[in-house]
């Protein structure tokens, strides 16, 4: 039986194989994704982001258990960085997962960035399509958490939990890291530690002064102690409330429509680049072009125009 048939029979091994196929962009992966895509669209995708060591994985563990207790099926993708020097990666988020049922209602996948820099791997979105098609009601996505602006999560999720800790700085620093704009729910984690109350207050004040429309979503700030599962249920409730809220307001659909448009454009971009290199790649002497640019005889913009023109003619 083909792996895809086993996938639709609920075989976890087949799911694992298909995800690798997608990640590796192995032969035929786009046709495969096309089939999966048409079976997807039901899963709610929740992103968990925040600085390194803030407790993202521990929160994922807590939220996953909460949804499982609710009778939901839960898939997780946790992303860690690929070393730009060796191409290798140490994927350690799984360490925080404990005692999950093995009957197919839970699935956890570690994923390396493989060169992407926006907090997720290039294939993360595609992998969530597979999880969705497999039948997971909830997909949790943990970003790399290198502390840089990790905007990929916006395009991969319906709702985003931003995790901060007393050690990660005050509200201004949270803002500078770009986390204010992407948060739908804040978790002030490690609130067993000194400074957590102040950080929560600080965030609350900063958010209050942010201008917002009358009916806009009020970003909740939940103080959690993820290692003791303290307030994780409350965090989960707020996440659910946000989903309900955006579904009622129409933002949920709008956001998904936006994501689909972006997806099409990115497919086009990749397709164009691939086709371009297929048709003209062999004829273009990049070294020679770079030589001329280095000598100041031409420039990348002009070269781009010329190559595009010859592509349109060819």
């Amino acid at each position: 039986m083909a792996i895809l048939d086993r996938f639709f029979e609920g075989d976890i091994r087949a799911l694992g194989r298909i995800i690798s196929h997608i990640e590796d962009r192995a032969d035929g992966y786009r046709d495969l994704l096309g089939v999966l895509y048409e079976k997807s669209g039901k899963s709610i995708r929740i992103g968990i982001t925040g600085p390194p060591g803030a407790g993202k994985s521990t929160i994922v563990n807590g939220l996953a258990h909460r949804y499982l207790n609710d009778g939901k099926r839960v898939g997780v993708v946790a992303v860690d960085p690929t070393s730009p020097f060796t191409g290798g990666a140490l994927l350690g988020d799984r360490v925080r997962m404990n005692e999950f049922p093995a009957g197919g209602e839970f699935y956890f996948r570690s994923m390396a960035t493989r060169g992407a820099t926006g907090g997720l791997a290039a294939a993360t979105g595609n992998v969530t399509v597979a999880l969705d098609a497999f039948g997971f009601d909830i997909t949790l996505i943990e970003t790399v958490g290198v502390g840089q602006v990790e905007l990929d999560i916006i395009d991969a999720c319906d709702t985003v939990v931003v995790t901060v800790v007393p050690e990660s700085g005050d509200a201004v620093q949270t803002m500078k890291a770009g986390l204010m704009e992407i948060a739908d729910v804040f978790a002030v984690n490690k609130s067993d530690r000194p400074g957590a109350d102040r950080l929560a207050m600080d965030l609350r004040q900063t958010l209050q002064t942010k201008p917002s429309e009358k009916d806009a979503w009020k970003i909740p700030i939940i103080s959690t102690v993820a290692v003791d599962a303290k307030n994780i249920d409350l965090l989960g409730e707020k996440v659910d409330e946000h989903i309900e809220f955006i579904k009622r307001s129409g933002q949920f659909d709008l956001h998904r429509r936006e994501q689909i448009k972006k997806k099409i454009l990115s497919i086009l971009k990749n397709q164009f680049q691939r086709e371009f290199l297929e048709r003209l790649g062999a004829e273009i002497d990049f070294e020679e072009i770079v030589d001329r640019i280095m000598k100041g005889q031409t420039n990348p913009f002009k070269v781009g125009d010329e190559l595009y023109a010859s592509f349109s003619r060819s």
Partner: protein
Amino acid sequence: MNQKIRVLLAKPGLDGHDRGIKVIAAAFRDAGMEVIYSGLRQTPAMIVDAAIQEDVDAIGVSILSGAHMTLFPAVLDEMKARGADDIILFGGGIIPDDDKTELEKMGVARIFTPGAPTEEAIAFLREAVASKKSDEKMM
């Protein structure tokens, strides 16, 4: 196309030392592999579960507690029961030669004893993975 070697490193049993396995993890990463580390005190069922979910090419298990003659067979049994016995199982630990031979007969692909250079494990893994590519049809 980009096929990376994915390897799960796990530590079953009750001994709480993870320094050795972390050194191996770093060496594999530096050799360009994707290493999934799943932590201490893993049961054979948890290890095989993780290997299936992560779709790894190989499982590396470190056993220092002396329980290798029960733990390795337990992992192998679990792999068979879950239809995952095509995954390469290798291991490390303080394991006498006789036991080593017996384990390798049972189906553990290779046992590395302390002091074995990490390059040896890397070379073994590359070769073992390269010779096992599957021809299953996707769709």
